[in-house]
């Protein structure tokens, strides 16, 4: 009986170790978070500088420039990862659908803004709200607390944004990006490099 118990414990430990080790090897490394976060941050602050220093109706131009750059960088990282990728996970599938749905909503809101169905000062708080939503869900999936906290704080920033004028909203969007993307992305990247 004692022998069977020891054997059962050994098998149980093996299962736990294998699942834990495999989880470390497939966890997101924060690269995408940092890429999109930094690109959006540069776009938001670039737009803010334009609004405050030399006002132009093309103040939004920083967004297509930096997001296209982020798209190109992500595409290159994606190709490299795909070549090295030896495992497919349910997490990766879920996260891809989540952020691509965020991308669609982002584009739809922009379309509504440029067709003047929505004003810029109505759209930006909604962007912040959706950033918070996607970050919160991603954090829950990854069980990574800084992302969850970042998502919640971002919701409060979104509420504040509804009560401020457009120039301040752009700065708030930048702030929400630092809290929900840059800091958690950096911590995730550091965590990965420490564990592997």
């Amino acid at each position: 009986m004692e022998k069977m118990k020891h054997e059962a414990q050994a098998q149980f430990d093996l299962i736990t170790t294998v699942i834990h080790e495999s989880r470390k090897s497939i966890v997101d490394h924060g690269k995408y978070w940092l890429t999109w976060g930094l690109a959006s941050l540069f776009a938001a602050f670039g737009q803010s500088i334009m609004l405050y220093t030399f006002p132009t109706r093309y103040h939004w131009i920083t967004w297509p420039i930096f997001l296209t750059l982020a798209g190109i960088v992500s595409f290159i990282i994606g190709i490299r990862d795909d070549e090295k990728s030896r495992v497919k996970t349910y997490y990766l599938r879920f996260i891809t659908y989540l952020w691509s749905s965020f991308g669609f909503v982002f584009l739809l809101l922009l379309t509504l803004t440029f067709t003047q169905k929505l004003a810029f000062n109505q759209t930006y708080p909604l962007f912040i709200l959706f950033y918070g939503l996607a970050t919160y869900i991603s954090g829950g999936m990854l069980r990574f607390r800084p992302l969850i906290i970042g998502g919640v704080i971002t919701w409060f920033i979104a509420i504040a944004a509804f009560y401020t004028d457009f120039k301040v909203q752009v700065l708030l969007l930048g702030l929400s990006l630092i809290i929900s993307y840059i800091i958690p992305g950096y911590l995730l990247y550091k965590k990965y490099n420490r564990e592997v």
Partner: protein
Amino acid sequence: MKFSKLDPLLHSELRLAIMSLLISVEEANFNYLLDQTGATRGNVSVQLQKLKQAGYIEIQKEFRNNYPLTTARITKEGQDAFELYVKSLQSYLKAGA
């Protein structure tokens, strides 16, 4: 106290390691299983065949960039067998507690 019988197919260390890896992912290729288990190519190959014959996993073979690529994924039968095995282990552990 009644003990559940342990599935002999899963009671081997390497086969259990492979099943533990596959239970937590959608699919994994041969090289990933090699790296994670640290076993030899031949040994992993033999154990995969045994798991496949039992209906616990599905194996897909294809070519990518002119190189053969073997991918394995767990079946519903495999998931049930794994869960039952874990429950059986728990029954032994609880009995000694």
